């Protein structure tokens, strides 16, 4: 079960050169700044960009190799564009049916009703796209792609054109897709918070090349990548709600390495969720501190450290139990603490974001 993609494309001022072996399930984020080739890669996978000499197979099904090039309409994929791109001459129902009725009956695994229910758009079916809000349009466009029963879902920054409130409106639906459907997703994004929330696997793109590819937690904790991520450097950990403190409105999250207090978002005990800890929110101490406002202090072992982009800063990789953690410190502090691999320190985490 894997997605194998090898593409080489040369344009006048841009080239794409990737050779990827991605998991055939879950959400893979193609992450990187604009111009890094994320969208071009996605278009090549869809066959919208003709990449001669490329190879592509999706869970054993060859879409492209030296001898074959299946045109886009013969690839069982769903594509969600950045702008919803609904057909303006068709109402919502006809937009949804457009793709579905072109899929042979025997290959239909997602019904129109399922797609409508999953994106919660039943009340919009009779409307023309011009009468929908931006968020509604994008939900319809996701449902339209799902209704073709794709074996691969391609999403090109589906939230980038939406403001913060609309993003919050759509994200739960995307999480639902992730949890309820067994369709692999390639998700293009340059927003770290979306990636942290949705992705299982991440491919970091830069200048048309994939500079890293791996499981989300391990890859985000790599010391050679955070520099590229700047202020967004940090780790994402899988956790579960272990207890809730009604008096202080806090939830105790258990992860492979310890427990963390976070603000209680109403998730029930036993619920799985992710927490995100940014490197800039982690500070280190040689001894456990008292008399501090910081709730989360955990013992950790220093693994390694590298110079950060700014000469005053250094990035330290730590291990808390089995989980990696990153801390961004000044080099002066690191020097004063005499940090070295293997040293036991206490991490003080100023902020933990509960995501999803």
């Amino acid at each position: 079960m894997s997605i194998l993609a090898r593409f080489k494309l040369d344009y006048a001022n841009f080239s794409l050169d990737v050779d990827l072996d991605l998991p055939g399930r879950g959400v893979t984020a193609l992450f990187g700044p604009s111009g890094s080739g994320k969208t071009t890669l996605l278009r090549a996978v869809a066959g919208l960009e003709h990449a001669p000499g490329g190879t592509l197979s999706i869970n054993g099904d060859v879409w492209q190799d030296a001898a074959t090039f299946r045109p886009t309409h013969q690839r069982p994929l769903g594509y969600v564009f950045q702008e919803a791109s609904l057909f303006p001459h068709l109402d919502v129902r006809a937009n949804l049916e457009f793709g579905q009725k072109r899929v042979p009956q025997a290959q239909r695994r997602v019904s129109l009703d399922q797609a409508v229910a999953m994106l919660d758009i039943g009340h919009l079916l009779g409307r023309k796209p011009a009468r929908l809000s931006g968020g509604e349009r994008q939900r319809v466009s996701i449902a339209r792609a799902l209704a073709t029963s794709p074996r691969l879902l391609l999403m090109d920054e589906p939230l980038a054109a939406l403001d913060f409130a609309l993003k919050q409106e759509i994200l739960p639906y995307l999480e639902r897709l992730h949890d309820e459907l067994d369709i692999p997703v390639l998700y293009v994004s340059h927003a770290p918070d979306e990636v942290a929330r949705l992705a299982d696997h991440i491919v970091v793109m830069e200048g048309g090349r994939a500079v890293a590819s791996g499981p989300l937690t391990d890859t985000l904790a790599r010391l050679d990548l955070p520099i590229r991520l700047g202020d967004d450097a940090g780790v994402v950990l899988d956790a579960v709600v272990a207890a809730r403190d009604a008096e202080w409105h806090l939830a105790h999250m258990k992860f492979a390495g310890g427990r963390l207090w976070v603000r209680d978002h109403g998730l029930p005990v036993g619920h799985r969720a992710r927490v995100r800890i940014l490197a800039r929110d982690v500070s280190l101490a040689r001894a456990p501190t008292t008399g501090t406002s910081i709730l989360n202090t955990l013992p950790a072992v220093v693994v390694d450290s590298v110079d950060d982009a700014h000469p005053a800063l250094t990035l330290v990789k730590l291990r808390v139990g089995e989980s990696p953690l990153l801390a961004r410190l000044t080099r002066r502090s690191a020097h004063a603490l005499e940090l070295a691999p293997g040293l036991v320190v206490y991490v003080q985490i100023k902020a933990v974001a509960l995501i999803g």
Partner: protein
Amino acid sequence: MSSADWMALTTTLKLSAVTTIVLLILGTPIAWWLARTKNKVSVVVEAVVALPLVLPPTVLGFYMLVALGPNGPIGGTLESLGLHHLAFTFTGLVLASTLYSLPFMVQPLKDAFAAVGDRMIEVAATLRARPWDRFFSVVVPLSRRGFLTAITLTFAHTVGEFGVVLMVGGNIPGETRVLSIAIYDHAEAMDYASAHLLAGGLLVASFLLLFTVYLLNRRYTVVHP
């Protein structure tokens, strides 16, 4: 209206209808190609298509007459095959009108196709639509204003032609005698009453036709998201 005038009206409508249909079939692929191609030759094709807009109808009519006549490349070939040449025939008139009205079909369609853009066509492809399917289920409906304008202008322009018809078709009742020529004849013969009837009728009909189209186009406005 005399029976000769009725006959001229019928010939005019028949000529315009046939020309419009022929041009719809010929002009659509040309317009599509012009709207989509990145080939530099397209500029030449565009200029050639637009020529009838600036050429005097008599110039076009003259060359068509030569080409379609018994000694011309088209007429001569037909003669050598044992067929009749096309000068002063209805078929010849259709051929000449097709050339003469070409820009009126191609330009509005080209603009409409260009306005549809790549995105909608790509979306249709990701939704399993084959190339022809994409054209008929997405491009055509999104270009309906362009089609309406192109069809109307082509039809109306063919109804109104005079110079080309006079050169290529002559004035054969029931075959090549169209309204504009009938009006010319009436005026020459000082029969102003008959000329007024035909000219006024043409004026009112043309206005009503264009008025209807612009009204429909306004209603058809597609709101893009």
